């Protein structure tokens, strides 16, 4: 009697779940090389024509530029706001600390649709038209909790002895932060900024509410192209997005490991 052990069943099950997770994404990449006009199976041949077409499409290139600028600015602003907040929560005691921490993490639990409508409504009341600035402040609100969590978690792990030593040697609070805390925090700051860049770059749910014809991001562009039907061009654009947003964190993880070994 042939008996399969429980563990191998668990392995098979896990493999199947991961096939379910990644097969659709792999198919997007595979179909992006389809030379035909209507990208689907069967595939006959392999071509880069859709990538060439993307590279020549000024609209899509503009969307890419928008997404890159937006993602970078979001990362900078969010990190700049999150670092002092993390310092306050980890290094100080004050009344209402826990409630405020929960409040700052609240955007995670607010559906993005609501965030999209709310900010748009608020701008309408202030009689501001949709603009790039709206996308930026929206993305800062969306990504803030994640960056805060990453920086806070790291800060808890940094012993205060170094800061105390600096202070006892006569450094002021700001100098202590700049010379001691900031360098120790650097890996978390890098991870947090990349995190917020990726979230901003990929975001669609709320961004669809805020985007305009002039300030489009790549996901919004893809959404617009889907109106017609799925095409190899969309698959090619998707493949480029996947490459970018998967490679960035991997590179970051690699760099973070290098840096932490060096210290």
């Amino acid at each position, binding site marked *: 009697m042939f008996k399969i052990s429980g563990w191998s069943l668990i392995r098979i099950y896990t493999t199947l*779940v991961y096939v379910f997770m990644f097969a*659709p*994404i792999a198919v997007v990449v595979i179909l992006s090389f389809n030379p035909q006009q209507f990208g689907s199976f069967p595939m006959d041949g392999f071509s880069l024509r859709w990538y060439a077409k993307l590279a020549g499409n000024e609209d899509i290139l503009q969307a890419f530029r928008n997404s890159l600028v937006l993602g970078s600015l979001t990362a900078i602003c969010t990190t700049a706001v999150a670092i002092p907040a993390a310092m306050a929560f980890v290094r100080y005691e004050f009344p209402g600390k826990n409630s405020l921490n929960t409040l700052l993490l609240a955007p995670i639990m607010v*559906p993005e649709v609501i965030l999209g409508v709310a900010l748009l409504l608020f701008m309408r009341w202030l009689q501001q038209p949709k603009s790039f600035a709206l996308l930026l402040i929206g993305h800062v609100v969306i990504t803030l909790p994640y960056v805060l969590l990453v920086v806070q978690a790291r800060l808890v792990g940094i012993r205060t002895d170094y800061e105390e030593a600096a202070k006892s040697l006569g450094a002021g609070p700001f100098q202590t932060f700049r010379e001691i805390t900031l360098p120790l925090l650097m890996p978390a700051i890098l991870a947090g900024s990349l995190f917020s860049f990726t979230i901003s770059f990929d975001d669609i749910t709320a961004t669809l509410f805020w985007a305009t014809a002039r300030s489009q991001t790549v996901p919004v562009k*893809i959404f617009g192209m889907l109106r017609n039907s799925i095409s190899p061009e969309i698959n090619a654009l998707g493949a480029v997005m996947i490459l970018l947003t998967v490679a960035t964190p991997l590179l970051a993880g690699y760099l973070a490991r290098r840096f932490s070994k060096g210290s």
Partner: protein
Amino acid sequence: MNENLKGGWRPWALLAPSLSAVFFLLVVPVCFIVVYSFWLRAPSGADVAAFQFGNYGKLFQDFFYPSILLRTIRVSLECVALCLVMGYIPAYFFYRTRSRFKPFLMLLIMLPFWISFIIRTLSWINILGDTGLINYLLVSSGILQEPLGMLYNEVAVLMGLIQYLLPFMILNIYVSLEGIDQSLLEAARSMGCTEWQAFREVTLPLSLPGVSAGSLLVFVLSAGTYLPPMILGGPGNEMIANLIFKRVIGTLDWPFGSAISVILLLLVGSIVWTYNRYLGINQVFKAMQ
């Protein structure tokens, strides 16, 4: 040292930027939605300040809108159930595996988070569509003459939702499994427990915080999304967020769109509040680190 613990004005100065950002860009705008939901929409399309319940009345005057609310709850619960069934075993595998590739396997858990939601959603068109992978395999192998219509129904919507939400479930369960004290398991084994008994008596109960945190996240995110129903569903698969999108972006009916948003907020808020009341919300944030 104790200068730090005194606090004083410093923490407030450090918190000022983030608190004002969340206050002015989240709290105040959400209050605006609530205020706006009582306003009127003039026939000209202008919004008129008022205090009346007409928008809510419209929501409950026939069964159309309540049925969409009920569908949202049902589909989100189906999604939670499927994510539990599909997520627990992989999480357990990642926790117990002694493979050399464990860092790589852990990366596989994180990978979906880095791939755009819209790409993950539309990828199902390539799988389920009439000229997609499954139909191509079925028709070309001669099993079927005609392609099966697999898109634009609830199953397709669930596929998209699960692909979006399963990583949250796996991650939350994995984090709570990792937190289990190994000596408890050793104790169980030394008492003569079998693997299965040790799992049932020790591991499973201690992983429930992760299971519940994952379920909460999956439910909340599923109830608030409109992309999978919009792209993979048909007219009969709309969820409440689709209505909001249609009202606000499509017909620009702000007061009515706000009223639907308030309903969604109440749904999500009541669930989060209940969860926090009995289980505490911090477990949910723990996994995100």
